């Protein structure tokens, strides 16, 4: 079933921003083909991970510009679609979770209302059915007292709970592809694992595709099947997650070596020779 039509097919994706000295490309000809699998995109900040995620959803804000030879989701070329059709697709079939939950949730609407809106935008259901789905979804993200939490406002919940609510909002329309951009960077280590386990479980259960974007090599290795390493707008290496430790590219090797280990014995950590990469 995975060998047939890919869920997402991207060829020669480019994102650029104008500068006084001409346009600067921040994603430089990226190719990507994704089935119902879990793909991790890793790289240092500024390497173009978020711009790649946003471009897939055609969410590059002006004055940024994106082009691609092909940007197909489930066999449909997205670049030809009207903005309206795109809006229908976002949420309903492709969802994106951003880094900071407090920023993405509307502060003046109750949590239950926002989750219900996310569902109603894509499905025609009775009030009663909407309510039932909202409660079911809050339970699925392990919120113990869903009726009560549905009445609360975003500022009344902790960061970890806020991020679980975001996940509920993104998954309630039952999308086929979830793009999670640093979904746990704002959370504590102890809560990070819970949130990622939850995403993982829901993705597997529903047979969705997942693109997990992160700067954390250990984290993508743990939660993905395949890993793409980005540097300066380009993919420098793609490998199976279980083979990350055997990565060949010197940039990937450099990143891996720089991570302190729990059983650390090195006196000095190896650092990247930045001159070799032309960046800072």
């Amino acid at each position: 079933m995975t060998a047939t039509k890919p869920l997402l097919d991207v060829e020669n994706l480019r994102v650029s921003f104008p500068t006084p000295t001409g346009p600067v490309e921040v994603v430089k000809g990226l190719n990507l083909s994704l089935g119902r699998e879990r793909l991790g995109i890793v790289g240092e900040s500024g390497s173009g991970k978020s711009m790649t995620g946003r471009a897939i959803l055609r969410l590059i804000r002006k004055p940024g510009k994106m082009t691609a030879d092909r940007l197909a989701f489930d066999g449909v070329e997205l670049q030809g679609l009207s903005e309206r059709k795109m809006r229908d697709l976002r949420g309903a079939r492709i969802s994106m979770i951003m880094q900071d939950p407090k920023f993405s949730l509307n502060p003046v609407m109750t949590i239950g209302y926002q989750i219900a809106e996310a569902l109603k935008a894509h499905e025609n259901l009775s009030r009663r059915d909407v309510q039932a789905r909202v409660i079911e979804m809050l339970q699925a993200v392990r919120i113990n007292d869903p009726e009560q939490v549905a009445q609360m406002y975003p500022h009344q919940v902790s960061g970890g709970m806020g991020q679980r609510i975001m996940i509920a909002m993104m998954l309630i329309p039952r999308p086929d592809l979830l793009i999670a951009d640093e979904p746990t960077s704002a959370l504590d280590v102890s809560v990070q694992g819970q949130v990622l386990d939850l995403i993982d479980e829901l993705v597997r259960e529903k047979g969705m595709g997942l693109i997990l974007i992160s700067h954390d090599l250990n984290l993508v290795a743990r939660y993905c099947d395949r890993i793409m390493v980005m540097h300066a707008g380009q993919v420098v290496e793609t490998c199976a997650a279980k083979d990350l430790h055997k990565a060949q590219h010197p940039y990937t090797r450099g990143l891996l070596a720089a991570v302190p280990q729990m059983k650390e014995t090195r006196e000095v950590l190896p650092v990247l020779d930045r001159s070799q990469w032309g960046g800072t």
Partner: protein
Amino acid sequence: MGNPAILLKDLDISYGSTKVVRDVNLSVAEGESFALVGESGSGKSTVLKAIAGLAPDWTGQISVLGQPRGHGPDSGFAKTCQMVFQDPYGSLHPRKVVDAVLREPLKVHGLGNRDARIAEVLNAVGLDQRFRFRFPHQLSGGQRQRVAIARALMLEPKVMLLDEPTSALDVSVQAEILNLLKRLRAEQGLTYLMVTHNLPVVSFMCDRMAVMNKGEIVEIADAKQLHSGDFSHDYTRELYAASGAEAV
């Protein structure tokens, strides 16, 4: 041995009517690198702030190098003890160039030979002299953190309070800053009290750690115990497991 570099006795710290840190007892030896770990909100930064004079509402005892600390800012104290914050963006004045940032503590304390001292400190933190007249926004995250460390070093303190000094940085830049901190400690005989949520960073940088949970220290352990995971308190074991003790 003489006095401990940092001594905290029966320390309770409050913000207004809320007590957020209770009954902290801790002794950090001179030259030691000591970590405070625990999840966010557990009171780690508050402990550093109290030592630095930025959280004045406390009871108990705080001494640094044998000197009891008062409750407010204390300029004499600044010469022995300096703090570095997590966010290099927020902690530097946006309209001051590096040179002005580094010159200020020298002016405040009436120290001379300023140009030479600034050049020397820039050198120590591995920043080229050409960065001297740049504004913070013209520097990368790692360069900004080097400036923050340079500023803390200007008065040649003996004790450094480091609050998540690399949490905002990429792993490769983190490695540069951790190496730098380790080298400075060896070269200048510094004592570190460092807040972090990253146990592998403790394993690389520190001799001992105190684990905080809900405002209290639940365990003080040797950093070597991170190799075996052999901890006495349940909360520490949880934190250890959640940190994905297995490596790539």
